[in-house]
């Protein structure tokens, strides 16, 4: 069953890294509902991406492994988005290092 899944990713902030990430999702035809990316405030060499994707958990796992294969990508995690906390996704994006939306609460 497809559902909204929060995915977090930490990567080296090289040119094209966002393209690489989005390419993997596009190739798998995974719908990206939201995406936000930023540099680490005090280290421009590192950055993170938060996104809400709409897919199955099986696909999320496959995509996670393919994203982790990208040379620049350091870590990827995902968790199901609690439906009632839809608005939280925005908050979550501001805390991309948090492992789950609930951690921020």
């Amino acid at each position, binding site marked *: 069953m497809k559902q909204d899944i929060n995915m977090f990713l930490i990567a080296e902030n090289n*040119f*094209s890294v966002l393209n690489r990430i989005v390419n993997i999702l596009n*190739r798998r035809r995974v719908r990206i509902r939201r995406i936000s990316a930023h540099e680490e405030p005090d280290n421009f060499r590192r950055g993170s991406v938060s996104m809400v994707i709409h897919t199955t958990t099986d696909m999320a796992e*496959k995509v996670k492994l393919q994203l982790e*294969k990208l*040379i*620049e*990508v350091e870590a990827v995690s995902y968790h199901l988005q609690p439906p009632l906390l839809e608005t939280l996704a925005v908050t979550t994006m501001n805390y991309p290092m948090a492992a789950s939306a609930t951690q921020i609460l």
Partner: protein
Amino acid sequence: MDVLPMKNKDEYLLSGAEILLQGLVAEGVDTLFGYPGGAIMPVYDALYDYNDRLRHILVRHEQGAVHAAQGYARASGRVGVALATSGPGATNLITGLADAMIDSTPIVCITGQVFAHLLGTDAFQEIDVVNTTNPVTKWNVQVTEAADIVPALSKAFFIARTGRPGPVLVDITKNAQNERITPPEYRPCRSLRTYSPKPELQPSQVLAAAALINEAKRPYLLAGQGVILSGGTDALRAFAEKTGIPVACTLLGLGAFPTGHPLYAGFLGMHGNYAANVNTNVCDLIIAVGMRFDDRVTGNVATYARQARIIHVDIDKAEINKIVRADVAVHADAREALEALTAQCLPNRHDEWLSSFRQLSEVEDAKVMRQEALRDGPVRMTEVVHDLFRQAPENTIIVTDVGQHQMVTSRYFGFLRPRTHITSGGAGTMGFALPAAIGAALAMPGTPVVAVVGDGGFQMTMQELGTIMQYRIPVKIVLLNNSFLGMVRQWQQLFHGARYSFTEIENPDFVQVARAYNIPATRIDQREELPDVIQDLLAAEGPFFLEVVVAKEDNVFPMVPAGAGVADMLLELPVTRAPIQTE
């Protein structure tokens, strides 16, 4: 008083182009395949002085350069290198990059790029090469300053050859090639913070796999190219001999296990051996090593090996559970995993299980091989390959193109050693063989290299005969001419009611073409001539071109029709003329 002449400060400086070439030498590169153009001219200018250290092979098309680099890498295990200019030069590399990506071939491509200040302005021959090649490279990078060349190059070589190998592209703007700086020391890259190429073998995974292997009654090992890439062929043999487990090879795995070995179970896949495919759905345990369950191997996944437990050994974690669910995953280098498994597994024999392979092979023998061995009517591809195998020395490297001749060669040439079989597997790139054979021959001087090609694919990169001529590269070419795009014709016959839509091909006089390039050439259409002419081909000191006119409408059997299960192999043409329904 004489004063020692002071060296001009500029003389201690080197251009980015020279720094690049020094870097290539430091990485142990001896051969480059390339084609010049405006944006890479500083590198070509520097190459003029590097003749003694770097052999540059001028190909006739950039696709030829990248396939030659692939052939070089596949034959030798070293990183192949290709050079091209910006724009069309770079886009001509894309097919080869995609091919190297899917077939895990370590190559580094260096492209020139317009001046940094022109990036994004639609300057002459400016193409966004990094983003264009992004999905077909393991990694790529654009360099806009000379100081960044060394870090980029060392990273490129490290990434290309480690872990699951793959193609890397380094795009260097012209200003960075021209810029003169104090040359930095070349330090090979040994690690990257965000990339761990070699997973640590987990003893728990090995023990879990060994437990399944020890209790299995009908275990079956499927060997992929990962075995060859990891240098694991001896380890595979030791494992198989200790456990008595039959071994089948994927297309790229051919050579990982000697075909003559009593435990060799055959070639897997759409045109593989009958027993090897059918027993996939009979075994109780699959040990998949360094292979990725490509759809040409699995056929319909829904009916693939449902009865079996699966151990999947792969260095690439994203391959595990991608297509087929693994009961035990061993995320590791194939050789290390095989060595550890050999230590943990009990000695065993599976005589009855092995004899089931022999029984199924007899079916294939009766229906296919014996028919093909009749040797009447027009010459068939099978007999050419058979005769070639009989006469070729054991170390001969066979490079095939894509189509019927490729499948026939995979079936009838008995590969005995690793790195003796080079083909375009995952991408199925027609035009691959001739340039790849050039690369293989240059990587392995003294080793016979034979390219087996079809009349269609040969014409896709036939201009590389010019490269063979210019450098006297001793590639032997066997062209199997059926005047058809044979494999497509076969599909049309089987699945489209024999409507031969645009597959019949009018060809030039190939022998004259080869001779125009000063390559000795012969055409035959009688089987009696085969042994002698193959002997001439193999004995020739330089290149040699042999065209064999073969049956026009021959088919490669057995065959798993697209969308069918592996156990539903066709052994012959169905009696009905109606098209076979596929997915």
